[in-house]
């Protein structure tokens, strides 16, 4: 990377600002995954039954799986409109290093689908009778976990952009990679609920987010170049 830092930062912030503006003009893109999250979370009690013990026990798992699926849902469109209207071409021929722009897209994805999930999760958690202390940890794990998911998901979205079977394929690519996040996220919350120590899980989620942050923008950039050929 020989690009000067200000140009990279300007490009990245430019992407974030532009896409936030777009999201503002089309709020449905943000709201749909949220509704999806709430609905999937509502499906479980309906399927399992209203027994309070069972709901309390399965709450963390259900919320985490629902969050994971909601993140996947919004990933498919991450690069699609850029690909279709030719602005991806323009981004690829810009002097800003592509990983910086890819990171901007990932951040933007997290801001519009990860963060809202974190914010709305307490409301859903209440319906699962989750105590306030556990809910706090749920939010922290979701916060750390969705960062990794957005970054990892960007790679998948970049690999499948422009392919016809995009959506199903994207899930197939990303879900196995997302397993560690799911395992640590959901288990940590369950452990808190059972009154056990949680530091290990949180450290892992944090470390994993940092690790993914270090390679995902480059992988996404490479994938974008390849997919756009």
């Amino acid at each position, binding site marked *: 990377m*020989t*690009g000067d830092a200000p140009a990279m930062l*300007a*490009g990245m*912030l*430019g*992407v974030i*600002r*532009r896409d936030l*503006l*777009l999201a503002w*003009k*089309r709020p449905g893109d943000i709201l749909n995954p949220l509704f999806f999250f709430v609905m999937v979370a509502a499906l479980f009690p309906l399927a399992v039954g209203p027994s309070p013990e069972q709901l309390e026990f399965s709450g963390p798992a259900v919320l985490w799986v629902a969050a994971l699926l909601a993140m996947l849902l919004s990933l498919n469109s991450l690069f699609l*409109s850029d690909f279709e*209207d*030719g*602005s*991806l*071409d*323009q*981004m*690829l*021929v*810009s*002097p*800003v*290093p592509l990983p910086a722009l890819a990171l901007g897209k990932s951040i933007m994805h997290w801001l519009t689908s990860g963060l809202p999930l974190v914010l709305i999760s307490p409301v859903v958690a209440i319906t699962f009778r989750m105590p306030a202390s556990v809910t706090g940890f749920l939010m922290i794990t979701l916060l750390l976990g969705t960062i990794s998911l957005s970054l990892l998901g960007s790679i998948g979205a970049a690999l499948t952009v422009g392919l016809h079977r995009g959506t199903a394929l994207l899930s197939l690519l990303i879900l196995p990679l997302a397993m560690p996040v799911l395992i640590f996220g959901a288990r940590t919350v369950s452990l808190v609920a059972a009154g056990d120590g949680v530091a290990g899980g949180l450290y892992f989620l944090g470390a994993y987010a940092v690790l993914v942050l270090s390679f995902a923008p480059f992988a996404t950039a490479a994938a974008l*170049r390849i997919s*756009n*050929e």
Partner: protein
Amino acid sequence: MTTKLSANDLTLFRGERCLFRHLSFALNQGELLLLEGRNGTGKTSLMRAIAGLISFEAGEIFWGDVPVLSDRQAFHGALVWMAHRVGFKADLTLVENLRFEANLRSQSGADFDEVLHRLDIDRLKRLPIRSLSAGQQRRVALARMLLSGAPLWLMDEPFTNLDREGRELVVKLTSEHLDMGGMCIMAAHQDVEIGSNAQKIVLQ
């Protein structure tokens, strides 16, 4: 006059099909390169490949003495590309789109309003790109070129969707750009009269 852009022995495939073999050219400051050929002969592919979006099967492009692939940023900093798809966000306004462009590439410092006025799109400033006609959108793409400080212009069918006045404007802007030492690669399937020393590549 130094050779800025040179291509050596290029071969390009699209999938199974070979578009051309052993293509070479050199472009000096102030020169225009016209790519001609019927539809489907690979004008757009060649342009995308020059821009670095597609990789050549063989051959290399140099910007100055440096292979483009080894310093992509330097090369991309020097080019601006008017593609077939304008590459603007339909839901954002003209100004919002061009402001995003300013984050992506260095600007020439030309006065924003003056450029819009010259292209006759200054009254469309606050409108979303979606509500502009195809011709007006091409004009916004021209504004992107004028606002960027890039010496190398890549124009893919710049006359499409433009009225006579617009076409004349493209010719005028391009010749001004060439006079100032700029370079231009233009794909067109109609005859273009710009400057005196245009090179031609005819693709079959």
